[in-house]
């Protein structure tokens, strides 16, 4: 290789002949964009795109590990099975009901807690800590704890009822009472999450607005509805999206409290998916159920996003 030929080729294709190190240390715009996006794209691909595509693919298979047969393409057979499956309807209905009850429930309780924590306390940490604890507790622990609270013989709830002269109740014998107990546990657990997000939002509202309102003679209620609520709207919508999606995926608390009982009266869709895949090893049907839940979550998220866009355009 001679020196002249080297110079010549460099003049022809200057970019291609640049040493690879300088391409990394001083990249052009396109390379830089690819480099910066690659980690996120790879992570999304591995953690989300691949599993979701695989899930959708499996939902079209007849794949049950108990059959001893290899996977077979089954078209929509798994989806066609759902309308005739009473447990599917019950679990879906319970999931929707849990969402409709616990999302507004935890918003109201969480809002109240946030307003309380936002009061000018001398020492702030005990309030903050007690807000944080329910959120920091693993879901299954919360389920276990509330399961014991409501146990008919050893539970503290019946103990208190007995002490104040009320009849003791077998909570988990009644589908409605068991469901109510589950909702209570979820609201307790989720309220602290809502409260923390709302508290963060409250602290971004400048005090000067309230001082101005005071000067103008607006009462506390008026201030809440005219200042606090409108300025918190974006925060609340974000909190609601997170809360609604986790509510649709409710698993741990009812699983630990009632196991779906009595019978299958308090089972949720996530529990039914778990049962079909982990216990029954019917991966095809389990995946199809999971696709339905995924669709449900997407639908709700889309609705919220529309809501945000609507509010953004209005302001």
């Amino acid at each position, binding site marked *: 290789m001679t020196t002249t030929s080297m110079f010549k080729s460099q003049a022809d294709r200057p970019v291609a002949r640049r040493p690879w190190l300088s391409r990394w240390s001083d990249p052009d715009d396109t390379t830089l964009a690819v480099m910066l996006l690659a980690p996120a794209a790879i992570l999304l691909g591995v953690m989300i795109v691949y599993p979701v595509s695989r899930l959708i693919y499996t939902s079209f298979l007849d794949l049950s*590990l*108990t*059959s*001893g047969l290899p996977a077979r393409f089954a078209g929509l057979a798994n989806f066609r099975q759902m309308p005739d499956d009473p447990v599917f309807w019950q679990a879906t209905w319970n999931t929707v009901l849990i969402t409709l009850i616990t999302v507004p429930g935890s918003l109201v309780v969480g809002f109240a807690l946030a307003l309380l924590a936002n009061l000018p306390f001398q020492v702030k940490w005990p309030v903050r800590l007690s807000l944080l604890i329910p959120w920091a507790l693993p879901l299954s622990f919360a389920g276990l704890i509330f399961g014991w609270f409501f*146990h*008919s*013989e050893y539970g503290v709830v019946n103990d208190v009822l007995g002490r104040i002269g009320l009849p003791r109740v*077998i909570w*988990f*014998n*009644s*589908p409605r009472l068991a469901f109510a107990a589950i909702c209570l546990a979820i609201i307790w657990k989720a309220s602290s999450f809502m409260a923390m997000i709302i508290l963060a939002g409250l602290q971004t509202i400048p005090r000067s607005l309230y001082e101005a309102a005071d000067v103008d003679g607006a009462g506390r209620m008026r201030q809440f509805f005219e200042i606090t609520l409108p300025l918190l709207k974006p925060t609340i919508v974000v909190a609601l999206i997170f809360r609604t999606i986790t509510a649709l995926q409710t698993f741990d608390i009812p699983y630990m409290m009632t*196991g*779906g*009982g*009595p*019978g*299958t*009266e308090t089972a949720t869709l996530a529990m039914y998916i778990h*049962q079909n895949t*982990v*216990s*029954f*090893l019917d991966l095809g049907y389990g995946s199809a159920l999971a696709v339905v839940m995924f669709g449900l979550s997407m639908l709700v998220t889309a609705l919220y996003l529309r809501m945000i866009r609507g509010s953004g355009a209005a302001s």
Partner: protein
Amino acid sequence: MSSGRISKLAGLLLACATAAFASGASAETNLKVFVTSQGQPAIWRTLLDQYEARNPGIKVSIELGGTTSDMQAQYLNTVLTAKDSSLDVLMLDVIRPAQFAAAGWTSPIASDMSSYLRAYAEANTIDGKVVALPAFADSMFLYYRKDLLDKYGLQPPKTWDELADAAKKVADGENNPNLQGLSFQGKAIEGAVCTFLVPYWSQGKVVTKDGKLDFDREAATKSLALWKGFADSGVAKKNIAEVATDDTRKEFQAGNVLFAVNWAYAWAMSQGAESAVAGKVGVARLPAIKGGEQATCLGGWEWGVSAFSKHQEEAKKLVEYLSSPEVSKFVAINGSLLPTYGKLYKDADVTRAVPWFADAQGIVETAKPRPVTPRYNEVSEAIRTTVNAVLAGATTPADGAAQIEARLKRIIR
């Protein structure tokens, strides 16, 4: 000078230690055995210690999991679906070998099954292949308070009606609000499947015949109504839908139960130092529906070798030991776990420890197996959640029986 000598000595020691460590690590095989936490792990640990002493180079550790049979199955399903090689030997409920063999999760074992009780030879042989070896036998029995029955001049009941009458008589006489007449399993656990099947079988009915569903809805309604009747009439407690197998054992052991439906393991603990009823317990065959036969549910646990174990030969050798007459006798004496070999039921050492085992062989041999199908988990779920719903009062016995039938029709075609 002295420091040089010390460093030389230290170097030598280090070299020796490294050599010893290296040779020890290369010669040793580590086996991991999965034992259900309800399966008296301490007794198996003693046996494994003996095995390690006799087999240098083999170390066996126990992994515990699953407080109930169904929780255990959920865990093993996850591990084995992932083809995880961390478990070598698996303790399996008698209902599992058929499912695990169908899924290809256990390795076949070349073994002669003729010396075991026939029920276990059958449960562990799938399509002519031995897929697991018996750990211990079991069936459901009626535990009763001998002292209380004697006090009121009563005999162990032969029918469920007699049991209800006896419970009422004792309850009236004792006037103890904490004393339950009967404890059985109403929680939606595997044991509740047997709760349903015992009175169902007692009416001469079967669930499957030649692999086809042969369900009798009327007999099923009667079975569910029997248990619900016990809860309604106060013979069993009102929250019986919350009671799992070990709750029955604990409450009986605390002296709060007259009659209890339970497996053989409850005996050893009822005679232990922490028991309020040691020396006051009798064990009998489960009662029958009036006009029917006395039926019971076949239980027992098996040892399987994981198909994903990297130590197949060592694991099979260990399983053969754990299933040997020597071990069966040891767990019978120390854990009141029923022998899997017929000859051990009359063994003097065994009957000295557990006198009623002398009469138990006939009961175990006539105990009925739960339906054998690879889709057993679905069968089990359909039955146990319905038993639970009926006992909680969320469903009537007739509706419950119809639900079981409808769900079984979708599973067993």
